């Protein structure tokens, strides 16, 4: 039989499709999940780590939200409710892998090892990202939607070209899947077999716009097949499932198998940011229902039932979280020292003559203002 397919077109579509139901390792009640699929339950030590980072992250997140009310942060997009995605994703990375976060992924950045104050530098109102991306293999928070998907693919492709054992993980939300860059990134990643994992945290809303107004696709994970990218649909409030899925994606990437698309079903408990009013577009019953599906409570129940967590350990962790919050408060309650001359410093590798003149003019202006009136 002759085929009409062009070279490169393959008939194997089945292996690319996600499952109809989200994969789950630990159920909402803390018992083994009903749909583990191909996911492997992480070792107890990893489950411990996931729990610890979620508790710390949750406290950090609450503290950051509080600091916006005191004017110490310019803005803070909370990831409360998405704790399992934030922590599961960050911990699944190997040391050499890169994380590409968005503005809502401060807890993932923190869990990757970036100090709390550096994590919050941009949201505090500074012009730079605070941390050295190369030190932590964490790209600066990305504010435009989906543009960082392409940076992740490029970095991953370069790793492949340079024969480095290195993968990239990019975080995005349900709204970002409508952006052109997401489609281009999935396509480029697939064609290049780039070692990259896309983790879509589907929290149901793009600011106020619900998923039903965002897409007509059966699931966001289902979009992978259009690019030839194998996809997983997972329970995003199950930290074990997120960790296992991202780990599997990184493993595939490292083995030369190319990209993976993961859609994690989760929920944004807080408003879009402190400047948003979520009561204008969603019912409080909906939020309460998701509060019942809390990712930390779930993992705690699983660990406790398995004898892996006791009251003493929980208390010690709670104290550690309070200490973190106190440190964040203390560090952010000092005024940021700004040096206006530095605005000109990093526009180019070396400031141009014109920028030097502008800097001198600004400094002269400031010096004049500081002179006592005579």
């Amino acid at each position, binding site marked *: 039989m002759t085929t009409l397919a062009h070279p490169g077109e393959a008939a194997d579509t089945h292996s690319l499709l996600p499952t109809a139901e989200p994969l789950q390792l630990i159920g909402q009640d803390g018992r083994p999940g009903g749909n583990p699929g191909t996911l492997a339950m992480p070792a107890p030590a990893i489950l411990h780590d996931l729990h610890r980072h979620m508790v710390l992250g949750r406290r950090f997140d609450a503290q950051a939200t509080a600091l916006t009310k005191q004017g110490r942060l310019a803005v803070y997009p909370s990831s409360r409710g998405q704790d399992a995605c934030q922590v599961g994703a960050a911990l699944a990375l190997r040391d050499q892998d890169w994380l590409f976060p968005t503005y809502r992924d401060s807890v993932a950045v923190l869990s990757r090892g970036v100090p709390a104050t550096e994590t919050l530098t941009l949201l505090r109102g500074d*012009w*730079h*990202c605070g941390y*050295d*991306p*190369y030190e932590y293999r964490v*790209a*600066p928070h990305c504010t*435009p939607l989906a*543009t960082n*998907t*392409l*940076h*992740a*693919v*490029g*970095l*991953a*492709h*370069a*790793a492949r*070209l*340079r024969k*480095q054992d*290195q993968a*990239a993980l990019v975080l995005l939300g349900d709204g970002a899947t409508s952006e*052109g*860059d997401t489609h*281009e*990134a999935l*396509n*480029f990643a697939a*064609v290049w077999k780039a070692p990259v994992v896309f983790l879509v945290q589907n929290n149901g809303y793009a600011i106020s716009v619900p998923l039903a107004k965002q897409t007509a696709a059966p699931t966001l994970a289902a979009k992978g097949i259009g690019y030839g990218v194998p996809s997983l649909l997972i329970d995003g409030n199950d930290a074990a499932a997120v960790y296992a899925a991202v780990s599997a994606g990184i493993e595939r990437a490292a083995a030369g198998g190319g990209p993976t698309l993961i859609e994690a079903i989760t929920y944004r408990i807080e408003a879009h940011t402190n400047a948003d009013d979520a009561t204008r577009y969603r019912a409080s019953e909906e939020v309460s229902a998701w509060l019942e599906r809390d990712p930390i409570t779930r993992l705690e129940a699983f660990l406790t039932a398995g004898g892996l967590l006791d009251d003493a350990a929980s208390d010690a962790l709670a104290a550690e979280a309070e200490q973190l919050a106190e440190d964040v408060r203390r560090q952010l309650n000092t005024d940021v020292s700004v040096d206006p001359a*530095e605005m000109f*410093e*990093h*526009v*180019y*590798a070396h400031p*141009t*003559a*014109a920028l030097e003149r502008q800097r001198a003019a600004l400094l002269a202006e400031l010096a004049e203002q500081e002179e006592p009136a005579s």
Partner: protein
Amino acid sequence: MTTAVSPATTAGSTSKATPPPGPAPVTMAAALNQALADSLACDERVVVLGEDVGTLGGVFRVTDGLAARFGDDRVFDTPLAESAIVGTAIGMAMNGLVPVVEMQFDAFAYPAFEQVTSHLAKLRNRTRGRLALPVVIRAPFGGGIGGVEHHSDSSEAYYTHTPGLRVVAPGTPADAYRLLRQAIGCPDPVIFLEPKRRYWSKETAILTQEGPPIDRAVVRRPGRDVTLIAYGGMVATALEAAEAAVEEGWDVEVIDLRSLSPFDDETLTTSVRRTGRALIVHEAAGFGGYGAEVAARLTEQCFHYLEAPILRVAGFDVPYPPPHLERFHLPSTDRILDAIGRLQWEDGDA
């Protein structure tokens, strides 16, 4: 396109490229091809990517033969999506490569605008200097080749208005080689605008990166009476106009800007203060165009030396016209001479 390409140096070698034996006629396209080949040979971090740059060698053949010589991991075709081409180049640069990207035509680069302006131009600043992005974006620009719509734009002002980018445009084959080598060696992102109407112009020259640095303008023709400022495809037109002006008794100095951003204030103000008259020529629409910035700067810096207002000869403020009309739109030598005539000459000035 096979003429004037010097013998191949060893792929992947880190030694300096062998210079051709002596001056030879070379087209701008061949000079650019040679610059890419020499950069690929000298620096293993350099990669060339874009639409049709591999097997085909680019629609203008500027990447001709490079994929065959350097392999598919160094010179490669991308899927057709400009935002992704620039966006992935940013990621590649983050991971130690020096990507040289080809945008097939000026107006087809617009889908990449967000990646260029929001990320490529800003990431160094956003990371306090930690994240350098030595990316070069090559784009054929301007008209004069009878292209259909969207194939003849002059988009330089969009880029020069964006801090963090360098914008350069060569006017001659030898300078195309030099500027491209310099752009690839530059730690800043560079928008490299290639005047497509001059791809096949020849010059007898030795190709070398020695000479004026990337951010300097050059005097292409010294003169006493008026400074005629041009870049890219208009450099040759300006030189023709300067020759024609001799008959009118005007001794015209022609400056080839080379670097649109940053702007070489020193070379320009020195010339204009000496001649007292200045004229800027570009194909792009005049309103809000690059020439407005040049006129404003030179007025600020040379006001007391000026004998006349600084004039612009620019494209009309219309969408770039179709092939049958472009000759009415493009600045011509006649239009330049006419503008020179309006620079308030008095008896004895010229």
